[in-house]
């Protein structure tokens, strides 16, 4: 638990992948943690049931922002079904760090927001 700021986490935080606004997105949603001020907003372009492109903007702690960046890489090019079935554990595995309960919500903001963006609810 002492090493949550691993190289790849800091790398995604400092140089987030797929960062920015996607003009022709057909799914857009902004999610936030009002208590700590973390925010991510996803722009997703879906065609033929596939995530053709995805971008995000956000601000917040290293964990919330790295998680969003990693998530975009994970889902880009995948079927909607893949995102629908994706579990929190899968994302956490991908982050590769062990989080205390208070930091868990930082890491999970991205997947929760993306699921609401695409399906209108948590699945």
């Amino acid at each position, binding site marked *: 638990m*002492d090493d*949550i*700021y691993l190289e790849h986490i*800091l790398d995604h935080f*400092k140089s987030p992948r797929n960062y920015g606004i996607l003009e022709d997105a057909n799914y857009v949603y902004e999610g936030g943690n009002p*208590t*700590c*001020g*973390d925010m991510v907003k996803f722009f997703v372009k879906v065609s033929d049931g596939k995530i053709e492109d995805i971008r995000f903007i956000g*601000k*917040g*702690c*290293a*964990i919330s922002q790295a998680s969003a960046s990693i998530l975009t890489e994970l889902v880009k090019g995948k079927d909607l079904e893949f995102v629908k079935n994706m579990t929190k554990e899968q994302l956490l595995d991908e982050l590769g760090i062990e989080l205390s309960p208070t*930091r868990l919500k*930082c890491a999970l903001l991205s997947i929760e927001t993306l699921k609401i963006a695409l399906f209108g609810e948590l699945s």
Partner: protein
Amino acid sequence: MIKEISAETLRKDFPIFERTIRGKKLVYLDNAATSQKPIQVISKIEEFYKMHNANIHRSVHLLSYEATVEYEEAHKKVARFINANSWQEIIFVRNATEGINLIAYSLGLNRLKEGDEIIIAISEHHSNLVPWQFVARKTGAKLKYIDINDDYTLSIDNYKKLLTERTKIVSVGHASNITGIINPVKEIVSLAKEVGAITIVDGAQGLPHLKVDVQDIGCDFYVGTGHKMCGPTGIGFVYGKKEILEEMEPFLYGGDMIDTVTTEGSTWNELPWKFEAGTANIAGGIGLGAAVDYLSSIGMENVEKIEREITAYALERLSSIKGIKLFTPNKVEGRLGVFSFVVDGVHPHDVAYILDREGVAIRSGHHCAQPLLNRIGADSGTARISTYIYNTKEDIDIAVEAIEKVKSVFKV
């Protein structure tokens, strides 16, 4: 025997410092959120429950008598502590937030009308801001905010411009929980009196650190919260001038606050009970009395002196760290030991997280004062170090080292 009072000696009164944080020394620097509790307060509460526990004002039995005397005595202690004219001017409530709501509901809602104006400062904690937004919305009154200067002090020039004969309420914080600035409340109150406004001071951050004399300040109301001044949680108080309290409608209705009740109606109990409906937080009130005793035994002049020393040291050490921005005046006078800061390129939560790993407890976020953070350009929140009477130079050294660690982890 005269013993030298210092942070090192006071620290021994606080049992929590006997514990460690994951094997490291506990460095508690989140005092603006809540203070730690001395053994004198903890024991007093324990003794009440072990020896005197009963409801107050209700029964003839001895325990009830003892509990009643102790609870009333706690009001007297608070009254003496802030130099109120009478202990009946002290109403116990849950916290500062409830105290301000009491005034907002009982006085604000009943007295204000469209066209009237309320003045607060941009630096207010949400608890001295949101209730006034509510009163303004309900009554049609207008809410105005005093701006700050570049050095974070309140702009008295701006305040003077806002004051008019339409101003009915002026409510300001004694000190800011973000910048640590102590506001010139006496001057603010006296200017408000010139236009006949009711004056309120939110003392949540002032009273734990400063010698307060409400008659000298001249305010109509002063609100305090026990948990930031060595007392338990769930207890605070409203000081109000007797003439005003007597004219005010009650805040909550029910048992204990009435004189007589018939099916036609009720009359109100005498002060302060008119405003203390239902079974009170008796142990909490007695605990607050013990906290006031504790601070009085140190002497608020000594509290101020001890805190000035640690504030000066913290300011010097923190301002010499490269790559951090401090949202605090670069001076020791006129301020408390509150230091909001950001480390360039690192989110405040990550700062607080890494400090916690080093045993250092600080706050991060918006600190319930979003308008001020937006005003000073700290929209994403800040990390905040806040000191109290038991913090030593070693505490500050450990915190500074931990901030250096943040920079090295994030390679900034």
